[in-house]
């Protein structure tokens, strides 16, 4: 499989504090890769580095083109949709406006309208609430809106930052089912950050494990899942 995203010796900094120390990380075209680790390991920072939202050094390539140092909005326009932690919903705008904001980089009005309907097809509850202010939605609905907004970009790659956070188990199950469908039928590759390792390893085909900004191990998701020592030491289940 060809590589969609490649990061080499990636370091990231918040002010003078270094948070990532030379990560190497790939996402295969068409695959789902998960990034696991404890609180404060640097998972969110890794995603933010890939989207150009913090100061980094190293080499990041998307479809072979170097993207590090570029502005966030330019990286997004290449087809990388980032669903941030806390969902990043525009709470005073309506559900439909949130989706339109997601398509702001596109000009094909007809296709945008069709894509809004497509998102509603995946998430019928959003359609029921399409004129409601997004801030009035439940946590699960907001997460679905965040994923829907990312879909509006027609991305090649989705960066998902803890989509299961704070959601009821049933809602998580539904959401992850939809992520799987998106990956299979719409050929959206994904880089998934999760605290819920069991869940993430089920969905993903490849996994990275990081600790305090350094890579601890990587391999096929299956392999990490079956390794009892790793499970006990790092994944906590």
């Amino acid at each position, binding site marked *: 499989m060809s590589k969609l995203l490649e990061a080499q010796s990636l370091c990231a900094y918040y002010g003078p504090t270094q948070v990532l120390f030379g990560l190497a990380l790939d996402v295969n075209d068409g695959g789902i890769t998960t990034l696991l680790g404890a609180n404060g390991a640097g998972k969110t920072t890794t995603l933010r580095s890939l989207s150009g939202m913090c100061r980094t050094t190293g080499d990041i390539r998307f479809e072979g083109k170097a993207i590090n140092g570029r502005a966030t909005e330019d990286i*997004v326009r290449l087809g990388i949709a980032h669903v941030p932690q806390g969902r*990043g919903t525009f709470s*005073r705008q309506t559900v439909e*406006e949130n989706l339109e*904001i997601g398509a702001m980089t596109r000009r094909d009005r007809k296709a945008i309208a069709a894509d809004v309907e497509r998102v509603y097809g995946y998430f019928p509850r959003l359609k029921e609430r399409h004129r409601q202010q997004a801030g009035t939605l439940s946590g699960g609905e907001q997460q679905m809106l965040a994923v829907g907004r990312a879909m509006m970009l027609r991305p090649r790659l989705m960066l998902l930052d803890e989509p299961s956070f704070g959601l009821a188990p049933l809602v998580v199950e539904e959401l992850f089912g939809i992520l799987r469908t998106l990956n299979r039928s719409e050929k959206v590759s994904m880089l998934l950050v999760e605290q819920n390792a069991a869940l993430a390893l089920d969905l993903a085909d490849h996994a990275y494990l990081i600790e305090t900004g350094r890579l601890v191990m990587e391999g096929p998701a299956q392999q990490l899942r079956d390794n009892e020592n790793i499970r006990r030491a790092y994944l906590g289940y």
Partner: protein
Amino acid sequence: MELFLHQVLAGLATGGIYACMALAVVMIYQAIDHLNFAQGEMAMFSTFIAWQLIQWGFPYWLAFGATIVISFAAGVLIERVVLRPIHDAPILSHVVAFIALLSILNSGAGFLWDWTIKSFASPFGSGQFLGQTLINKHDAGMIAVTILLLLLLYLFFRHTRIGLAMRAAAANPESARLAGIRVGWMTALGWGMAAAIGSVAGMLIAPVVFLEPNMMLSILLYGFAGAVVGGLTSPGGAVFGGFLMGVIENLAGTYIPVVGREMKLSIALIIIVAILTVKPSGLFGRPVVTRV
């Protein structure tokens, strides 16, 4: 009763100007979280440009339109040149930049056009509107133009994609960037629009207060008061607050003997302090809640 109605209508006319200034202030506040103290001087400078164009023989409405375009461009330029470089700087740096802008524009206007008071023609003519006694032609024209302007702005922000992009950029800049919106340019666009709105306010009020470098001082104060009353986070509230300030100003000046003409300006300050004490988020604003 006639006096009362007369004062309310005249108050709505100046209130429209305050509403425009309040809206300009709120638009910039939403985008960069700072109050632009130079908003009034920007409007004053625009009005001088209009005056100069008219002196050069431009017909009024052509000068009016050209001034709006020039002001818009100047607003964008100010954001790019002065504010972009300091956008991460602390609040005091912003205050200093605004004060610098204020005094540069004030002195610049005095230097270019001197400090004498100039009259500024009203495009609506003098005399009473439609022959009745309640409202004169200029006040009626002011109300009409401000309402038209506010309506156009409402349609722009509600029903265009760029308006939605600007609202998104102001509401949540980080998420807006993640949707590919160029937030920096949206801020610049907001500055341009605020400057253009201010220029309309300046040109409309100039026939009433006369044209001179300090003409917008009291008007901006009422604009601030309107913005604070309505809530700095609510454009609609700011417009309402602006109109309300115009009416309060006139009624207080007429019916409270101590206030009279001289003490009118203190009304604005009293209202600002009172609102900030009692309901800091304003009538329509939302309290800012931060997770710590």
